[in-house]
């Protein structure tokens, strides 16, 4: 199934750096997401745009994750030719990821 069925997300930017929250609707799915939605998989979602790194910050008390993706915005709001230079729509690229939910 798609991550979209288990979690929600919001994208933010600072310059050429993108951040994506990932929040399971059901806290019981936190461990499943921790195991499957790795920084490597998220970085791969932005490989076509030249992203150079991704760090995942885990927030177990909030049952949420924060991904910080470097160089994912083709220059960011000022530099990019992309219509969405902020990368605001990227939360839904993350939510398109396939996950296995037993």
């Amino acid at each position, binding site marked *: 199934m798609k991550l979209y069925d288990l979690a929600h997300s919001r994208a*933010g930017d*600072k310059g050429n*750096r993108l951040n994506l929250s990932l*929040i399971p609707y059901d806290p019981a799915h936190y461990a499943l997401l921790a195991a499957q939605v790795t920084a490597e998989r998220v970085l791969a979602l932005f490989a076509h745009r030249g992203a150079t790194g991704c760090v995942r910050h885990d927030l177990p008390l*909030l049952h949420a994750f*924060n991904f910080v993706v470097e160089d994912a915005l083709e220059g960011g*709001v000022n530099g990019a030719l992309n219509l969405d230079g902020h990368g605001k729509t990227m939360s839904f690229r993350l939510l398109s990821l396939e996950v296995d939910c037993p």
Partner: protein
Amino acid sequence: MFRLGNASGFSGDRVDAPIPVMRDLVAGGTPAALFFETLGERTVALAQLERRRAPALGYEPMLERLIRPILRDAHDHAIPLLGNWGAANPPAGGLAVARVAMELGLPGLRIAVVEGDDVTGAVAGGQLPVHEADAGLDMGDWRLVAANAYIGAEAMVEALAQGAQVVVAGRTSDPALAIAPLMHHFGWRADDWAMLAVGAAAGHLLECGAQLTGGVFWDPGRKDVPDPANLGYPIAEVTADGGLVVTKPRGTGGLVDLRTVKEQLLYELHDPAAYVTPDVVLDITGCTLDQVGKDRVAVRGLRGHPRPESLKVTASFEGSWLGEGEVSVAGPNAAARARAMAEVLLERLRIRGLSITRARVDLIGVSSVHDADDGALWRSSAHEPPEVRVRLAVESASRDDADGAAREALAMLCCGPAGTGGARWRVTPRILTRSHLILRERVPTRVSIRTAKEMLA
């Protein structure tokens, strides 16, 4: 208890947002303040260009429209208004407030203008180190437009202490607009990191307006939000011991729940242990949330660390142009016609020999905003939508060449594939930004307070 409202999350936000928030603050009867965040990373550069063109402008263009419906209540109920709506020209923003005050018969309204964030000279002199995130940026022949330091709450606290009813600032940090009225009301010291962390969290949660109350959240059938046409803007209720509850005005649309608060808490956040503001470093790794009532969420477990010695500076540069042109195709074989047109557009750029440093084609409907400049996603997509909008975007140091490229999309009206229509094209100046650091003692701020009548005398 102190109630703090927000009525604007960016330059371009809903101009009727302040009315229900002010009504709720007045009805609450407790001490309160209302803040407006209208200055993005690039807004200040655009405002600087505007000021250069017209010296009496360069402040937030919607300022008068935002405050006119609420200024009388702010005055009568002693609810100060604070905003970074001075943008590149806080004194002119102050005059704009004074004119509205006179229209409303409030000549005694006390207006504070906060200046000092403009550090263009220091950046122009090459004296400031570049922020590590931008170390690889080479500005080449780009020309410096503006450089502004993100100042903290102190100058605004001073303004409030002197009785300011409206504070017009320029490049403040967003959370400082929330921290200032809280420091003033509760008498928090500038090194009370635990309390300032509460203020920073309130500011961070509120600074984007409706993003806390259902905006950038609603998703029909999945995350439904009541009445998104009338989203209520957020309110924070803060107690002297650092209690924080976020909510929204009664009788408005939207919602405040654990989902909306989590999304906004992590918005534009990098390391959750160190959200750096000029006033305090906020750590949310111990934060917990509780739904304590309908549209009421308590935020607990916030920690604060000492503020940084340096302030962040955003420097903006000009030096190139963005040319954009778009046309549509629809109906049978639309995707194939769009793909072929994309290749022809790129070929035309080569034939014309235009001085283009970067070009991109989007097939809107197949793939665009998630794509890369080289069209990696649409080139590998088999999607066949019934309509596609083809967009060409180029960067050029020459305005004429950017325009010439954009007009290649227009020319598709006669030269394009069958059934091509709906052309739009434009050329706009590009602004690039680079972050620097500056020691805070090199950014002296100034506060001047006068009544509306005195300002216009």
